[in-house]
């Protein structure tokens, strides 16, 4: 990967933000060097001529079966909800997403 190591660190910060991963300074330092070594390896792929190759050829694959879109009863919602970090009245609860001054009811 080209660019200075500062550039690489910035790139990792950007990617971590996209991936919704908080990294501490220590992790940033470690991952920085490893990231570069791994990308160097991945870049070897560019040595191969892949002109005219269909990247998503499915000629070897069995066609996917169709099935009816049917409702199947499943009555264990309470077990699922009881494992939610926060739930209220049968719903998953998250911090408020909509900005504004409305008081909570």
């Amino acid at each position, binding site marked *: 990967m080209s660019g200075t190591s500062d550039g690489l660190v910035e790139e990792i910060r950007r990617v971590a933000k996209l991936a919704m*991963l908080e*990294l501490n300074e220590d992790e940033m330092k470690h991952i920085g060097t490893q990231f570069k070594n*791994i990308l160097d390896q991945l870049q070897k792929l560019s040595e191969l001529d892949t002109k005219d190759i269909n990247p998503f050829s499915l000629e070897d694959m069995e066609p996917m079966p169709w099935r009816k879109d049917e409702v199947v009863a499943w009555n264990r919602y309470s077990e699922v909800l009881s*494992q939610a970090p926060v739930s209220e009245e049968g719903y998953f609860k998250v911090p408020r997403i909509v900005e504004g001054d409305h008081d909570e009811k």
Partner: protein
Amino acid sequence: MKNSEFLKLSALELVEGYKKGDFTVSDVIETALEHIEVNERNLNALITPLYEEARSRSWMLDAALARGEELGSLFGVPVVVKDNITVDGVRTTCGSRMLENWISPYSAHVVECLERAGAVIIGKANMDEFAMGSSTEFSAFGPALNPWDLSRVPGGSSGGSAASVAAGYAPIALGSDTGGSIRQPAAFCGVYGLKPTYGLVSRFGLIAFASSLDQIGPFARSLKDVAAILQVISEPDARDATCTRKERPNYAEFLNVTSLEGFKVGYLAGYESLEIDDEIKRAISQTIEICKEAGAEIVEVDLPISTRYGLPCYYTIAPAEASSNLARFDGVQYGFSVVADDLKELYLKSRGSGFGPEVKRRILIGTFVLGSSRYDAYYLQAQKVRQLIIREFNAAFSKADVLITPATPTLPFKRGEKLTDPVKAYMADLFTIPVNLAGLPALSMRASMSQSGLPVGVQLIGKKFGEGDILKAASVIEQVVGPAATALGGDRK
């Protein structure tokens, strides 16, 4: 028979013993559980032993036996299941802090199959976090150790499953294999490990890592057991759309052949000059010799692209798929979560603290190669290279029925040896990865023991749905080298 002898019996021998009334299911399960309790202090092969569940099931099965009910093919057989495969009512951690306390409200298809066949699940096996790793050292629950040498790793990511079978916890176990996670630990622990053809075994209930590569498969100490458990878990299932509806053969029928007349065995051209352990090279040539003496035609095959570009191809595609699959762990619906003021902070902090280092590394790589400015150069190019690898295997299989290759480039390595250098650690999967990229079946088996007393494994690769060919060649080899041995209880070979 002394109770400790139960630990060495194969699954099919146990079923025979129950039928003849030689011992009861609770005798066997109790012995296994005591053995586990003592050895877990060292091995750490299990994240969750299921003492109570296994005990009550054994009483239930003994009652069924007494009533003269028809017995399933794995009746009363203790089984260890990797902890990324769900069992109803039991926690499924994936070796991660993220799912440390998550109780699954449903069972995987393979678990339903095992239970219908009468098996007893005695524990959930230790693994590298989310199946990412080759040593089980990336488990949030501490590393599992190799029962042949406690200073060494059992391999990974299904290291706990392989160690359990080698240590006599159970004759059979389930693992999952995305790039070698069944075959590499099987080689390191000296047991059989089969990665079935992509699409043979339903992944319903397997927590996804890389969906175009993941496959569930068995560990065992005998080929008969491999065939028996494969028969059970390969039952078709509409809940995994990739699971084939093709009819499954009777896998046991491929065993017990003595001749490979008319059968072609391929080996990797120039394997002698590869950077692999000398004892592994010797095991390969001995294995080829066994096939030759059984009448097989030996042919040389070339896999230059797979050998040179398999690793970078895999380490582009697998992290890309993982970054997408692991997006579901967001701290909202289940799993590890921190208290936060806004939703974004909740995501960032829950994922930042819930995932360990290797998982974060791979999510970052995956997110990077899928970025709009990198996509063509990395991800799309890797998909094209994957097509070249498929073509290369197709060409090899126009000359041979089965290929013999190393399972791993080295013998089991020391704990901590490859923790700090991921690129070096990724090399452990050099020979197993191309098989996943091409969707093929492959078996790793013990071919000999090293001078230092460690298992030496080889890999047999088959055509798509060529599990029978693999079993046939392996059966001839097993008749010479013997089935796998157990590593605990003073019977190290």
